[in-house]
């Protein structure tokens, strides 16, 4: 049995890198970690695995060869006028780079899942900036930790112990930290907080505005704002102002409720304001393990973090127009390639309807819902377990993923598959 230590977990945006993986006969037999999500990922990633390329013939997905599948994907992309290339959060930066190159080559639009999670966060950052820090700064210094619209107890299970409220830092022990949770319901995270503030759904912006008023010593005449008694808001404002190092973690509760990027504007300006009194940082709780990497790669290669359109031969970025949901639900695109994501499972109905009505290709280690609807499916290695590469943690720290087992025979990593598609696309274009 082989023990591989310091393995990164391709689970969530916390990208914990201290997992011990036990391998026997190219099989993971045990994982040492205290995260259920991670354990499940490492032990079960191989279940329900599809290992054959599939092509739809007479309405049914039939096994085919890799060459035929690649040919089909290349033709779909070349024949399309405006293809959408979507996904990218569950794979390496190397694959993401190939994706950008492919989108540029076929003059399509490329988007990553940011578009349906922290897209509003990025718009907020583009409005006001982002006073943030690495997670180790939180661990070393934070004495006030606010989780707003996020529930790490369930979604980023080791976040609190490794990086935030329960972590042991050089200048700060867990018992020296105060924890505040702002949410619409009493989540598991809220149960262990020093202060839980139950905000009415879709009224986070109002609550933040009230906090800013408190900080500026303006009087609030109402008895409550957003369902929160004014005394409680005052208590929170005082906690924020008087801490030594505060941090506000936020999740989809803020980005995907009413107000969207305006909520993020509110949160960022609140944190900016707090820096007049003390040191305060803000950080989005990114979900997929390399969605941050997708934003980084897109940005350095094209100048824009998501929703990048190449139809004019250069990168354009128009959120609301070049974002995947808008492209799909307005029926702009005439073909789609999905890599490392499952849009049929989570995009709005109209978008999915259009997605399935046009040629659809999928590259994924598993048969996802999207794969079920696809015209061609190419299985790939599971990045982070069967293939290495680079991934970025939610705070922008890049790390190198480990390959701990070999992929099933004949299964290539997505980077290589995309490269083959790109080559074939160039050949086909050259032949015209």
């Amino acid at each position, binding site marked *: 049995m082989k023990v591989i230590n310091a393995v990164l977990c391709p689970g969530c945006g916390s990208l914990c890198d201290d997992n011990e993986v036990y391998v026997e006969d190219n099989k993971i037999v045990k994982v040492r970690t205290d995260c259920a999500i991670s354990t499940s990922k490492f032990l079960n990633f191989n279940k329900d695995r599809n290992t054959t390329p599939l092509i739809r013939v007479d309405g049914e997905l039939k096994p085919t060869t890799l060459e035929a599948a690649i040919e089909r994907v290349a033709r779909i992309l070349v024949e399309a006028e405006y293809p959408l290339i979507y996904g990218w959060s569950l794979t390496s930066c190397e694959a993401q780079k190939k994706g950008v190159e492919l989108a540029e080559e076929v003059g399509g639009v490329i988007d990553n899942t940011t578009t349906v999670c922290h897209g509003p966060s990025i718009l907020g950052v583009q409005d006001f900036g982002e006073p943030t820090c690495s997670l180790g700064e939180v661990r070393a210094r934070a004495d006030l930790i606010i989780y707003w619209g996020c529930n790490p107890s369930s979604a980023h299970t080791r976040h609190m112990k490794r990086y935030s409220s329960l972590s042991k830092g050089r200048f700060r022990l867990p018992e020296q930290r105060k924890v505040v949770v702002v949410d619409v319901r009493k989540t598991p995270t809220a149960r262990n907080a020093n202060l839980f503030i139950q905000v009415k759904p879709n009224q986070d912006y109002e609550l933040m505005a009230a906090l800013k008023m408190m900080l500026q010593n303006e009087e609030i005449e109402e008895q409550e704002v957003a369902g929160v008694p004014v005394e409680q808001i005052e208590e929170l404002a005082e906690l924020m102002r008087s801490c030594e190092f505060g941090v506000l973690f936020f999740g989809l509760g803020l980005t995907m409720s009413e107000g969207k990027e305006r909520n993020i504007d509110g949160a960022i300006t609140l944190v900016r304001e707090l820096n007049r009194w003390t040191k305060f940082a803000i950080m989005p709780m990114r979900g997929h393990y390399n969605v941050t990497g997708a934003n980084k790669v897109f940005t350095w290669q094209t100048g824009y973090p998501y929703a990048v359109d190449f139809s004019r031969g250069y990168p354009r970025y128009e959120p609301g127009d070049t974002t995947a949901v808008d492209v799909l639900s307005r029926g702009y695109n005439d073909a789609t390639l999905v890599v490392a994501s499952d849009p049929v499972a989570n995009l709005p109905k109209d978008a999915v309807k259009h997605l399935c009505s046009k040629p659809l290709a999928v590259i994924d280690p598993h048969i996802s819902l999207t794969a079920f609807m696809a015209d061609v499916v190419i299985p790939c290695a599971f990045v982070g377990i069967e293939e290495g590469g680079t991934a970025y943690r939610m705070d922008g*720290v890049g790390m190198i993923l480990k390959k701990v087992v070999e992929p099933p025979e004949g299964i290539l990593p997505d980077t290589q598959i995309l490269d083959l598609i790109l080559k074939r696309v160039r050949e086909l274009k050259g032949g015209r």
Partner: protein
Amino acid sequence: MEYLLKNGYVVDPANKIDCERKDIAVKDGKIVESVDESKAKVIDVKDMLVMPGGVDLHSHIAGSKVNIGRLFRPEDHYKDYEVKKGVRRSGVGHSVPSIFTTGYRYATLGYTTVFEPATPPLKTVHTHDELNDIPILDKACFPLFGNNWFVMEYIRDGKLEECAAYIAWLMRSVKGYAIKVVDPGGVEAWKWGGTVQDFDQEVPRFGITPREIVRGLVKVNKMLGLPHPIHVHANQLGVPGNYKTTLRTLDAVKDLAAGDRPIIHLTHVQFNAYGGVDYLSLSSGADAVADYVNKNPHVTIDIGQVIFGDTTTMTADGPFEYKLFTLLRGKWANADVEVETGAGVVPITYSRSNYVHAVMWAIGLELALLIEDPWRVFITTDHPNGGPFTEYPRVFSWLMSKEARAKVLKKLPRLARARTNLKDIDREYTFYDLAISTRAATAKILGLSNKGHLGVGADADIAVYNINPKEVNPSKDYKTVRQAFAKAYLTMKDGEIVAKEGEIVSAPVGRTYWVNTKAPQDIEDAVIPEVKRLFEDYYTIRYENYYIPESYLACSAPIQPLEPAG
């Protein structure tokens, strides 16, 4: 491939060649004595200016903070884009261009080597990711050490050998090139929301002063034999009256110098050469700094010239960016990095009519003109802090022509003219001076013996500009100068033509240099386990995952230290 560049006027200061008509022969990526004319591709560059490829030692082109600037400023890119064409990938400008465009635009200017001067070691995977993607250029990055917990504690406890071993280990681990120091101690203070106000003020909770950090690192740099002196962004950047701190910083290490070899490089000094006591009384302190540099060979500087217009400031000096934000109230990004350093990003528009900006503009040029030895003052804009690197030709024309400067000066606020010395300076750079300051001297101070010159054996990195140095009088024809330098007639990298009259012809992968430095084995053997033990307490990643293998670099070019360690 063999080439012969015929009939050009060669300016090659490292070989003391000043505008001589001379053929340059190229074979297998190197400059050679001669080639067989019947086999070689002969390019007639009659009456054109031939120089070594440009070497920029301080330009923020890659890494975490650069990407923050790119991400949060879509308005910076909208109007400036490049369409995919042949080997040229598409991309966007302007002050923070996308990565491929960065490489192409430098090549178009005739630059072939560019160093990223600040990388947080923890985020150097990101820096290398971007450096790998920059086409054409040779590059490297400088890890930040001025606020590093290990470094501060080793120096405080007088453990210089241990400090050197730690830095050697880190430099190898992240594939870095030189010791970068930014606002020593000040960034650690900023992580608690404070600042270090004085060169001799203690850093909170660390019991060490900026002076001790700088002195310690100069000594360590020597012990390790790194090819470049410590590269320092001094304390109090941007603060009126800071020229005094600058002089104290330089003087603090004077006694450590031996011989004529510079031991400290002070960067973008324009931002650190302010007189006055507040922004209302701001004046130029360039004369005092220049005077010091003229008298003290242990110092080199680059200027960090300001260009009027819109740009993005970005630095590891988080507290400075916060100050700037409180003045401008626009966008502000901050990105502190555990154990090591921080960063801040703030957009700015430098305006001619703004008194402070006008003074800043004059100070940069004053430094370049008042420091007599071009081997010790280098032209930069601290891209993109003073302005984008694409504006270099404008800076060249200002330095080469008093008339060009006067034209700008007369549009500045009267007070700014009165409180600066630029109007009284007659000096004009020659092509020879320019070639020293942008190529020969920068290559030399970086310790790159194959760069910055056109002698036999040098890398065939060559820039040809369509300007006749014998006929054009830069003093009058400054516009011609500017246009010629904006678009090289031909840029060659490693013996391959990469750019021709603004078009990208080929886009080879450039090298990434790093220094394979080592401290004495017994000390490393004692230090590394200690670092490993503390690593788990300090960092949120595992020690094993801090290491970046050589294979991670697209084209790794390790360099050996200058002299045996010890």
